[in-house]
Structures are given as structure tokens and as C-alpha cells.
């Protein structure tokens, strides 16, 4: 039974949300003003819905909505009486919690003495009316930045403490919204004192804090019906569905930081006019600059703090010049800070998905497009997912049966195994298996092909165990544990040029990479394979090399260390295949496998071609007995090669790579 209450006096308390008629919203205004608060809320000005001082419900944008798209904002009539039927406009609440200009310090000279007095502005008591979920998240982000660690911004702290937040659920969205991707909305779930959800005839009202509850108890509410409550949930769910998930955020931090050399930075900088509008409209941007104003005598001065923008030409300037002289540097700084390095500094994203930077960009740059172009989401594909190994512990093995053997070279054989646990066929490029025969030590062998019902292992008979494996016949069984280790970061190669440099048996762990590329060739840019072997007779997978070159659009270059007169190909070292080449490695990722000396020389040569250390990946060979980081043999610096590798970037390995005796 709904309980109707008058605006004053003792009343029964309503559990859960109450219903406030639209005509009664002025009561809330009056209560907040009685409480000594200035009311800041939405109002129509200059063709937009901005936030400003308001005192009456009549100043709210009744019946107004908006249309937003990159570089475009227009008001439009909704054709109803909604007061909050719009999406966020150009104003951010930081205008009051973190004003664009505040006096900071007054300083003066008195003879030889100098003095500095902090300038303190008494903070106004404010009520923010109409705060959206993304904006609550933005306040929380600035809380974290400005008062969330050892050093705090005292001005922000007092201003923030004096704000009461009256939030509003979003019942509509703009084409520029992406709170869903940033995990900040559209549902308001926290960070409010009072929460309003607008319905046809009024509002659902709920309290989030004791202060909000006190206010709620003084409003003329009736209990909300379950139909009203259900309707609200359905409306907000519809908003969520409409926004979708424009920026798949999983892994965005790493994906973005891996793309510091992407050509798109230069392309977007062709459009960006570095005006800084995005940073001014952004509700979380917090960079500031100091300016000094002196009197005519120069004896007293006032230091003021104002918003600054990392797009300003002078933002990163020192006496010798600017560290970010080019627009592309400044755009990259802004985007990587918002979406990546902010996490490292503050444990949160710097973006809340409000879309202001998109709407208010005068040239219509859409961060969602830029992120998706620079650091595209990678669909989960078999090659980027690691499965749980079977027989993980060293006392356990599953068996597999040899169904084919192929002599690749005089000393190297490829075994096709079937009857294998399905985990193996779902293994990932670069992974290995511990392979055992009774009486021999189990050995780590790279998986050289993944088949629907089995795997292939390419084994060089170098010692007693490997020679015994190479001698296996059809129908013989082997013991297996795995698949173990990590994989080649093929997901990072999507949309890039890929260079594969390998020598000798090193082609075996890279063969599944080539299979994966061939299976989905269009996802990758230019693919170059440079392969060196001891002699022409030592080249592995000759038929496949031919097919990759002739059919699959892979540029295959071969070289051998020595050859007879019947070899018309190249003779020389593998790095000479590309050390004088004309190509540019700045959009390239490299996978390298071979003897360690060869990998060192290769990474040095690749670095000289513009491939950065974080984009050069090698697979290391170390003595391994357990394959799971327990036996200790394969330790290399801070890594266990079997468990943390075998694939590492040169940047990860740092100066342990190639260092003698590690």
C-alpha cells in the first residue's frame, strides 16, 4: 500500500525507492538550498545542455534531448516532458571540484625577505544535480588522482567534501557513449547521495548515503511499485544494449603500449589540430600549469593554477626544446595515458567512456576508432589461448601412437602422433611436449604441427634419447606430458608485418605459426620467412617452404652455410638475408628461433631495421627436466624458461640475453 507523505513533519519511513511526482521535484531543490547548498544542474545555454547554477525546476532542460556524433552536437525536442532526457554535454563537474583557475599562493618581497602564503578560497557547499554513472566514475578517478595517495590536493579535498551528489540514471544514450566498455555505466550503482530515475510522470528516488537518506525522508514520496522498479531496470538495460561494447577493453593496456610505433599515430595527427578540447571536456584530465601575476612594483605576486593540456605545444618543454614536439607525440601521450599508463599510475583507467572527447573534437576524431585501429581487439583464436596441460606432473604421462614418420634430413625425423589427449591438439604455437621413452630421460620437444586428432614432433637425433625417438616405427607408442610453456604472441602480429628468422631445427617450433598464418592469411600484413641451414640437404619441410612461397603469399628466403655446385640459392649467414634490405621494421613483429648466437645477431640486425626490443621474440633452449618450473634447471635470471617461456621478448630478457654464463 503506497504511503503518501507531505513535504514536512514526521512520517513513516519508506523501505526501498520512493516515487516523486515531477511536479514535486522543486521540493528537492528547496531542501538542498535550505541546506545552504548552491545547486548546480543542467540547463540550456548557447545551444547546448550545460551545467550551471540553477534555482528552479523551470531552468531544467524540460523536453530537450540531444544528438551527438564525432564533432557534432545538436539539441532536439523530445516531444515529452522529461527533465533529464539528454546525454552528457560539454560541461564536466570538475569545473566545480577542480576549477579551471584558482589562486594558489601569494608571495612577496620585503627587503631581503621573501614570504609565501597559501591562498585559500572557502569552498562553496554544492549539490550536483543530474550526475550520470560515467560522471560518478570520473569523480572517483579524480578522487584517486588528487586525494587518493600520500600527497593530496588540499583545494580539491575541501571542495569535494562539500559536494552532495544527486545522480540520475541514464534512460537514453548518444552514439558517442561507451561507458559499457569502460565498466562505468550506464547503471548508477555507487558514489551518489541520492539517485533519481526519470519515469513518464516523475522519479524513482533512492538514497545512497545517510545524508541522502535524511533528504529522502523529507521528500513527498510514495513507495514505488514493483512495475515502476522493473520498468527502470528494463530501460537502463536497453541503454546498455544500445551502447554495446565499442572498445573491447580486455588487454587494452598491453595492446596499446605494444603499439607505440604504429603508423596510425602519424595518420591521426594529420587530422588532430592539437586544440586540447578533448582534455578540457574530459572529466578526468587533471594536468595544470602555474602562472604568476605581479603588481606594478613586482614585490607581490599571485600564483594561480589553471587547467593545462598535454596537447599544448609548451607542455613538455624544457630549455632544450619539447619532448613531444610533433602532434603525433602529443596525441599518443594523451591516448596512451588515458587508456594504459593511467592504470600503472593509479590502478584505474583514465577514461570513463563519457564520449565528450569525441563529440567536442572539432575535427571529429573518435577515440574508439583510433583504439580499434591502433590496438585492435583480437578474437580469441586457437593460437592465442593456452589450454591446461595433461599429465602436468613429472610422474605422469599419457601415451600417443606413431602413425607416420618422415625423414626430413639425414638426422631429423618428423613423427606424426595420434591417440593423443585432446589437450595437445588444442595447444598453441611455440609450446612443447615432454616426450619420454622407457629408460630414457624425458625431453622437451617443440610441437611442430597441431592436427585435429594429434600432433607432429620434429626431432633431431643428437643424443641417445632423440636417436631412439627418430628410430620409432609405425604403431610404436611414446609418453607425453603437455602441452607446456607459453606461445608465440601471434595475436600481437595481427595487422602487422611479421618477420620470422630461423635456423636449423629452429624452424620446427615456428612451423605452427606459419600454419596459423596460412589458415588466416588476411589477418596479417607482409610475412617474411628467413631460414638458414647448414647445407641444402639440412633444410626442413622443403615441400611446405615451396607452398608457403608460391601459394600462400609468404616471402621465403633461404640460405645455407655451405653448398655444393648444384645449389643455385644463397650461401651465407641468415642475417645477411636482410641486413642490407630496404624494408622498414617499425610496424613489424619478429619471431626468432635458432642457436642463441644466431638469435643475438638477428635481434641486433632487426633492431637496426627499426624493430623494437619489445617486438622481437625469441624462443630459448635450456636444460629442462620437469617442464613446469619445479626442477630448477632451466632458470635464466628471474625466469624459468619452461614455465615463463620458452618464448620471450628481447625487452623481457634485458641484458641477461646473450650474457656469458647466465
Amino acid at each position, binding site marked *: 500500500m503506497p504511503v503518501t507523505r507531505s513535504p514536512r513533519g514526521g512520517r513513516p519511513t519508506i523501505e526501498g525507492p520512493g516515487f516523486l511526482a515531477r511536479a514535486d521535484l522543486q521540493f528537492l531543490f528547496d531542501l538542498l538550498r535550505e541546506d545552504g547548498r548552491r545547486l548546480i544542474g543542467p540547463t540550456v545555454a548557447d545551444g547546448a545542455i550545460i551545467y550551471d547554477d540553477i534555482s528552479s525546476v523551470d531552468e531544467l532542460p524540460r523536453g530537450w534531448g540531444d544528438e551527438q556524433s564525432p564533432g557534432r552536437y545538436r539539441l532536439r525536442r523530445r516531444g515529452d516532458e522529461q527533465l533529464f532526457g539528454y546525454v552528457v554535454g560539454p560541461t564536466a563537474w570538475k569545473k566545480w571540484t577542480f576549477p579551471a583557475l584558482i589562486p594558489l599562493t601569494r608571495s612577496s618581497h620585503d627587503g631581503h625577505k621573501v614570504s609565501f602564503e597559501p591562498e585559500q578560497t572557502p569552498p562553496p557547499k554544492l549539490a550536483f544535480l543530474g550526475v550520470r554513472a560515467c560522471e560518478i566514475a570520473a569523480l572517483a578517478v579524480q578522487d584517486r588522482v588528487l586525494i587518493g595517495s600520500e600527497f593530496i590536493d588540499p583545494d580539491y579535498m575541501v571542495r569535494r567534501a562539500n559536494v552532495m551528489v544527486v545522480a540520475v540514471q541514464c534512460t537514453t544514450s548518444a552514439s558517442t557513449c561507451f561507458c559499457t566498455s569502460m565498466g562505468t555505466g550506464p547503471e548508477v550503482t555507487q558514489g551518489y547521495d541520492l539517485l533519481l530515475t526519470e519515469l513518464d510522470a516523475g522519479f524513482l528516488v533512492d538514497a545512497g548515503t545517510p545524508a541522502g537518506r535524511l533528504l529522502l525522508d523529507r521528500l513527498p514520496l510514495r513507495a514505488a511499485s514493483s512495475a515502476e522498479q522493473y520498468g527502470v531496470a528494463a530501460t537502463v538495460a536497453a541503454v546498455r544494449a544500445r551502447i554495446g561494447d565499442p572498445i573491447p577493453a580486455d588487454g587494452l593496456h598491453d595492446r596499446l603500449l605494444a603499439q607505440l610505433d604504429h603508423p596510425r599515430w602519424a595518420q591521426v595527427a594529420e587530422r588532430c589540430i592539437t586544440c586540447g578540447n578533448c582534455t578540457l571536456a574530459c572529466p578526468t584530465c587533471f594536468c595544470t600549469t602555474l602562472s604568476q601575476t605581479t603588481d606594478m612594483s613586482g614585490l607581490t605576486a599571485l600564483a594561480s593554477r589553471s587547467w593545462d593540456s598535454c596537447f599544448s605545444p609548451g607542455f613538455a618543454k624544457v630549455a632544450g626544446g619539447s619532448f613531444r614536439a610533433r602532434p603525433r607525440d602529443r596525441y599518443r601521450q594523451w591516448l596512451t595515458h588515458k587508456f594504459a599508463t593511467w592504470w600503472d599510475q593509479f590502478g584505474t583507467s583514465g577514461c570513463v567512456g563519457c564520449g565528450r572527447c569525441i563529440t567536442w573534437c572539432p575535427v571529429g576524431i573518435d577515440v574508439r576508432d583510433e583504439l580499434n585501429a591502433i590496438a585492435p581487439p583480437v578474437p580469441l583464436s586457437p593460437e592465442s589461448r593456452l589450454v591446461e596441460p595433461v599429465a602436468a606432473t613429472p610422474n605422469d604421462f599419457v601415451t600417443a601412437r606413431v602413425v607416420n614418420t618422415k625423414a626430413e634430413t639425414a638426422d631429423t625425423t618428423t613423427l606424426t602422433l595420434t591417440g593423443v589427449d585432446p589437450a595437445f591438439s588444442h595447444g598453441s604455437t611455440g609450446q612443447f611436449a615432454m616426450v619420454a621413452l622407457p629408460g630414457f630421460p624425458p625431453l622437451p620437444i617443440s610441437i611442430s604441427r597441431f592436427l585435429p586428432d594429434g600432433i607432429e614432433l620434429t626431432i633431431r637425433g643428437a643424443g641417445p634419447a632423440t636417436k631412439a625417438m627418430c628410430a620409432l616405427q609405425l604403431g610404436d607408442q611414446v609418453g607425453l606430458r603437455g602441452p607446456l610453456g607459453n606461445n608465440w604472441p601471434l595475436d600481437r602480429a595481427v595487422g602487422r608485418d611479421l618477420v620470422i628468422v630461423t635456423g636449423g631445427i629452429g624452424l620446427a617450433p615456428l612451423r605452427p605459426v606459419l600454419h596459423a598464418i596460412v589458415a588466416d592469411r588476411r589477418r596479417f600484413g607482409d610475412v617474411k620467412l628467413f631460414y638458414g641451414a647448414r647445407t641444402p640437404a639440412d633444410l626442413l619441410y622443403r615441400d611446405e617452404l615451396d607452398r608457403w612461397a608460391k601459394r600462400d603469399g609468404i616471402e621465403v628466403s633461404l640460405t645455407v652455410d655451405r653448398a655444393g655446385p648444384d645449389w*643455385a640459392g644463397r650461401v*651465407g649467414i641468415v642475417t645477411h638475408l636482410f641486413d642490407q634490405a630496404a624494408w622498414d621494421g617499425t610496424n613489424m613483429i619478429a619471431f626468432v628461433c635458432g642457436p642463441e648466437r644466431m638469435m643475438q645477431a638477428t635481434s641486433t640486425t632487426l633492431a637496426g631495421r627499426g624493430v623494437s626490443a619489445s617486438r622481437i621474440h625469441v624462443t630459448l633452449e635450456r636444460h629442462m627436466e620437469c617442464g613446469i618450473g619445479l626442477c630448477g634447471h632451466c632458470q635464466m635470471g628471474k625466469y624459468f624458461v619452461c614455465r615463463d617461456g620458452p618464448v620471450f621478448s628481447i625487452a623481457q630478457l634485458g641484458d641477461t640475453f646473450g650474457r656469458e654464463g647466465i
Partner: protein
Amino acid sequence: MQDHGSLVAVLNSTWFASGLEPGIQTRLAELSRTFTAEAGQELFREGDESEVFGVVIKGRVALRTLVPERGDFTILTVEPGDVYGWSAVVPPYRSTSTAVAIETLEAITFEGPALRAALREDAALAQALYPRILVAVARRLTATRVQLMDLFAAEEVRSW
């Protein structure tokens, strides 16, 4: 016979001669001629007096050495941009390997005695060219060392 201008352009397309001063390039062009060879044609023989220094423009030259009872081995191939016949400018001017075109070859060549005379007489030419020759020979030397390591052998070759 090509004119000097087009020879300069061709030389400029090779890493060996690109970026040399225009005067030096013209001087080189005056000393050079274009040369073609069919696949299989021998360019010089190990131990013979070196008569030609060449820059490969197109094709491939195999440098071979004869190992008694094992036959001819290709120890290196010279690819476009790189040089062959460096012994034509380094005493005792004897070829250190046998060179065979294994693909149809286009090259720019210099007569050994004329090039040596020019390098003796023209200090600017010598100053410009010797560092390039040194880079070419050093690159070959380091490659040879890596090949000597026999990195892809089944067993690592132990130092002795």
C-alpha cells in the same frame, strides 16, 4: 655501353656505392663498365691474378673453393649490391676463390690495374672507396666466422 649518368644511377642503387660524393661517383663511372654473364659462366678462378672488381646489380655469384677429393664447395654467394673480386685491390692481387655466375648476372665491373692506378693517383677516390671496400670485406669476414662456428651442426662445436 651505357653513359656515365646512368652508370652513376645504377651504382647509387647499391649499398656499396650509394651516397658517395657526385665527383667520386662520376670518377667511378668513368672507370667502370657494365658486364653481363650467363648462368654457369666462370668469372675468375681461385689463385689466378685478379683482373676485375665487380658490383652485382642483378643475379647471383657463387664463390667456390676446391677441396681435393670433395669437389667444389660454395662458401658464399654474392647478392645484388655486394662486391666480388676485392682481391683486385688488395695485394698480392690473386683471387681467393673461384667465382661463378649461378644466375644471369648483371654487374658493374672495374679493370683491376686501372682501378689500382686510379686509387694510387686520386687520393679523394681512395679516401672514399677504401672504407667501402673495408666494410664489404669485413662483412664477409664476420659472415665467414659465423659459418665456421657451424651453428646448425647437430653437436655444438667445442672450442679447443
